[in-house]
């Protein structure tokens, strides 16, 4: 049993670490690195404990709830809780932060103090979003996650970092403004900021308030769609992810994108189920956007020559599957009394959640690998490589596993999400599933053709790449946890599916 407020602990451990770093003199770089990594490790341990405990006690209900008044007059409180949906994402956050800081210890050489500080703040913000049960708190942590990322891109990024950072900031800011308006609208209507209470109160229910409901829903949706880089709102992503420093890209693609998907599942779907269903079934805007994200994103991937940019665009494809899964669940609203429908909708929504987790692992690995290659070769231009399989076989092996996981090969963790999403989608919105499945062929094409073939196969230029070194031990240490997760969950997804499934089932049962 756990007798201490573990959720507050996991949110504020990084903050304590950040404050500690603040008082360490900037010259003692080693201490800063150690403290930063140590605090990330503590968070990781807490995340594992949460995972285990939630599995043990029951992932269907909210566990370890803590509720402290914050601004009681306006119903704002500090309200956290964890269930099967957030536990994996917390673990993902803690894992990627730890690996990111571990890897950064050898790659970030300037402004180390600020870097570690911001990274821990970022972790705090992300954990906070995943654990929030209060909309204002959700929004505050949302913003807290956004600002450090903006600075990480803008300060430690590549050549066009400022452009990328500002684009990212404006986008997400506008998105969160839309979201904030919707949140305020919900408050005005229901008089509460608590997600559960607000959902139970059915904001803007009834035909006469339909327009308002639509407006509020779209406010939320745009906020989340920008964050998860769904089709028309995706253009900040390639810039931001390409220009960010390696660990920054890992966090941005691995976790920040998930905020959008998480918000759709946790906030948009329970608050506005009917509106969501309307825009999936009657006016199918959202599934169309999802399918465009998948197919269009994959095609754009195929035309990229910058390794990091290609990987960045592949996120658009994978997050498209997340929206498709959520759409499948939304399409089931109103029919969930039937056991069969509930079963199918749970599959789709669990698939979306599984896809988020798996994508976090895979894209994290891919960005690490891209960073490693860039670190050694000083270029990311795919045309510059060729035949490297001979020179760096270890790297080749790891990259191949990550790529295969990315293209959804069964036996690696990327498969399950796509499979369950498609299974859910063919049940409710088959035309979109039929089109969306094309993404799988295109994904195979762009990973194997662009990444694997151009980097590793072909004639080897000994003069140019003869001194390229294979992975160093710390790079292997960074990659192996991710590879293990890919393989283990690829063969045996039960531990995570159990969590997701229970939480998603509870969520869907709460819908009308």
């Amino acid at each position, binding site marked *: 049993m756990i007798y201490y407020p573990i959720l507050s602990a996991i949110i504020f451990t990084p903050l304590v670490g950040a404050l500690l770093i603040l008082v360490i003199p*900037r010259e003692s770089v080693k201490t800063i690195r150690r403290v930063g990594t140590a605090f990330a490790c503590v968070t990781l341990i807490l995340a594992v404990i949460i995972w285990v405990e939630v599995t043990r006690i029951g992932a269907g209900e909210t566990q370890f709830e803590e509720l402290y008044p914050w601004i009681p007059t306006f119903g704002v409180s500090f309200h956290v809780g964890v269930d099967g949906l957030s536990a994996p994402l917390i673990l993902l956050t803690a894992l990627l932060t730890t690996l990111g800081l571990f890897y950064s210890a050898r790659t970030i050489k300037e*402004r180390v103090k*600020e870097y570690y500080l911001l990274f821990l703040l970022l972790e705090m913000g992300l954990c906070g979003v995943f654990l929030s049960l209060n909309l204002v708190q959700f929004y505050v942590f949302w913003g807290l996650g956004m600002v450090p990322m*903006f*600075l990480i891109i*803008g300060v430690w990024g590549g050549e066009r970092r400022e452009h990328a950072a*500002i684009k990212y*900031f*404006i*986008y997400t*800011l*506008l998105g969160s*403004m839309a979201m904030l*308006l919707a949140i*305020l*609208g919900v408050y*005005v209507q229901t008089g509460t900021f608590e997600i559960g209470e607000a959902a139970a109160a059915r904001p803007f229910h009834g035909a006469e308030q339909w327009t308002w409901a639509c407006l509020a829903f779209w406010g939320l949706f*745009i906020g989340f*769609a920008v964050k998860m880089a769904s*089709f*028309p709102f995706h*253009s*900040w992503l390639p810039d931001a992810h390409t220009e960010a420093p390696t660990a920054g890209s890992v966090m941005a693609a691995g976790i920040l994108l998930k905020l959008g998907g998480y918000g759709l599942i946790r906030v948009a779907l329970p608050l506005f189920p009917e509106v969501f269903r309307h825009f999936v079934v009657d006016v199918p805007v959202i599934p169309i956007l999802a399918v465009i994200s998948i197919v*269009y994103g994959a*095609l*754009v991937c*195929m*035309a990229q020559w910058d390794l990091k940019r290609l990987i960045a665009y592949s996120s658009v494809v994978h997050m498209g599957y997340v929206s498709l899964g959520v759409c499948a669940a939304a399409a089931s609203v109103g029919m969930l009394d039937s*056991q069969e429908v*509930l*079963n*199918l909708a*749970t599959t789709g929504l669990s698939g979306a959640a599984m896809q988020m987790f798996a994508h976090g692992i895979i894209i994290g690995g891919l960005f690490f690998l891209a960073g490693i290659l860039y670190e050694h070769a000083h270029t990311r231009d795919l045309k510059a490589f060729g035949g490297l399989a001979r020179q760096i076989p270890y790297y080749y*092996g790891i990259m191949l596993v990550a790529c295969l996981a990315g293209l959804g*090969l*069964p036996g690696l963790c990327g*498969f399950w999400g796509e*499979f369950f999403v498609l*299974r859910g989608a*063919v049940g409710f919105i*088959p*035309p979109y*599933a039929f089109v969306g*499945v*094309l993404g*799988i*062929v295109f994904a*195979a*094409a762009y990973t194997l053709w662009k990444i694997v*073939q151009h980097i590793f*196969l*072909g*004639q080897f230029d000994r003069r140019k790449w003869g001194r390229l070194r294979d992975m160093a031990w710390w790079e292997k240490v960074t990659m192996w946890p991710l590879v293990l997760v890919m393989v283990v969950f690829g063969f*045996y*997804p*039960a531990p995570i*599916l*159990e969590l997701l*499934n229970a939480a998603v*089932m509870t969520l869907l049962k709460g819908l009308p």
Partner: protein
Amino acid sequence: MHLTWLIPLFPFLAFVAITLGAHRDKMTSRRLAVGAIVVSFVLAQVIFWKAVLPPVSGGDAVFESVVGWFLIGTAVFRASVWVDPLTAVMLFTVPLVCLLAFVYGAGYMREDPRYGHFFAHLSLLAAGTLGLIVSGNLLMLFLCWETLGLCSYLLIGLRFDDEAVYRAGLRAFLVTKVGDVFLLLGLCLLYAATGSLAYDDVFSAGTLARLARTSFPLIGGLSLPALPTIALLIFGAVVSQAAQFPLHVWLLDAVEGPTPASAIIQAVATAPAGVYLMARCSPLYTAVGGEVQTVTMAFGVFTALFGALTAIAQDDVRRVLACSTISQLGYAVAALSAGAYVAGVFHLVTHAFSKSLLILGMGSVTHGMKHSLLSQGEGVLFEPHDVKNMGGLARWQPVTCLAFVAGTLSLSGFPLFTTGFWSQERILEAAYETHHPAIFWALAVAAGLTAFYAARLLCLVFLGRPRSEVAASVQESERSMTAPLVVLAVLAVCLGWGGVLPDWFYRFVGDGYAAGAVYFTWQPLTISTVSALGGLLVGYLAYGRRPLRAGQMERLEAGMRRIRLGRLYDALRHCFYLDRFYQATFVRGTVALAHTCADFDRRVPDGAIGFAAGAGHAAAQAASRFGEAAIDRAVSLVARAGRAAVRAVDRFDEAVAKGAVNLTSKVGQAAAQAAVRFDETAVDGAANFIARMGQVTSQAADRFDALVIDRAVSLTGRALWVLSELSALLDPRVLTPLANVVGYAARTLSSASGLFDTRVVDGAVEGVGSAVRAGGRFIRPIQTGRVQNYILIAFISILVLVAMYFTMVYFAWW
């Protein structure tokens, strides 16, 4: 735990072990791989005999073992292994052929630098194939199925410095991936409709009857009937994996892999897996019947004929055999479509033996050719796989030659004592039963052609005199390569003697499927015998009696050119240019489309940002309509933004991306003075920004009228118009204090930022003592000016919007 689980496990463990480290040592890799496959072979034999010895009844599973895998929805998905007669006979065939190919590969690949990886991939291939056979549900089958595609890719890619080779590997992977997508969709539909993927659930009569009544809704009231849709989708996978016509091209690419791998891929693993899937799903095809079966039949028959036709014109020995595989699998598909389940399965087994024998035999020949080539140091242009360079090899490779003769006879269905005869005859019988003369005759012609090209290959390679220096000094391959050939030769011939084993096979596999005794009808029997013997005879007359000499034109080619069919011959030889056609259409098309999309993505103003900026633009215009002297400063600010927008329109001529950067720097400059004259400049800057963005969007909107963006913009514009209407109603008394508050907040913020600026610039030394200094140090990296001001602007815009929203809400309430 059941023994069956362990069959695929050992090769998989060998794969892991070799990949993780053992590949550095050739000997260890070989021992691991061969050892693992021997264990699997023994286990498979145990299971096989267990399944065979007691008399089994019906098509029921002999045994099944189930464990929970994961929970999804409300149901637990169970992993299972399942051994029924179909699995049992495959368990006899597959590990045996794999084992022989492994032993053969140990010798064949001896000099290869990637020996270890070769065995690792081969082990994975074997593990995938064995797993595919024993799995008790379609999901595990799919998992193994994809592994097979991956293994062909990896095995072909072993020679990764040869461009033609790895390109072939990629093509093979992508073509099979197309089929995989069909299968995935089919499985998803089946799973969604039945809630299960286990064989005993989905193929039970009750489920099939329920499926027949189910349909999936499409757009606009249309719907898809479940059963035919699923059957066709699964057949799509069969077409791609079993290398049926339009998707057969991957098999021709796959010959680039090492010979032992080709043998496994073509004889037992990847390609036959397609037919296995169809056999597995035969209850589904029986239930759906009618048009779907006609479709599958058409594919099978056409492919059988197509493959045989193209095989007669190939010069590359590997391609002859690949075309032959295509044709033979077409045969099996045709048999399964005609409802001749047992004949199809039996053909799969006989084909496994004869084809692996032929491919390995051919590998022995080309291995000898390559060695001879190396010792002679002949030019790089010499093609060791070309029959025109061979000839008279019987003298140098007697064992290989004898084994090859056995394979040829079995493949062409030499009557009565080869295994091939019994399966081919049964298939023709089934075709005859369909009462479609076209089907029957097409298959009969294909049988004749098969015998012909088999004889042609045999004669061209082994008879006559050597047609090149290289062929004249070929040596017999080593023992580890010839021994598997001998074993396979014995199997390919002896299993059919007198029809004893085939008869047993029909009773064992056929129970519960084809009721009634096996009987013969004289027409198919005669035709089968005539086409086999006739084909062999014609082949011998054309190529064996007067063997081809060096430099002479190939007989068939010469003959066809004489009667002005040279073009047809060329087309046959290039398999009707199908791969070029795909290259020109699908591949080029996709790549072109990809580039179009990428261009679009680069050039089109960013959706969301344009969207928001459009909103700002609309708001500014709406506000300016009230005139400058409207209610108070709050509105006049917006109006100024509108004016600034108009000004900006003139100046704005840069490209979008450039403009954004430019803009940023402008805003940055403006912000430098912000600390002093904040309320003038910052507002201007903000207006500028909004205006530029507005411009961008309106251009975008014009260009992409039909797009979502347009609709969204106009919608928001309307919303904001309503908003401004509302604000027109505002009493100045309400707004003035509000504006004051905003102004005050802005001023406070600006002075705060000014404070920061000085602190940060000056105090960028050390300062652990004071908290303010620490903050300044933390801010330093970002104090590029622009960034900071952005935050400022962002905060202000949030404030303004929130204020507007609250007022709106207030009024709505009021």
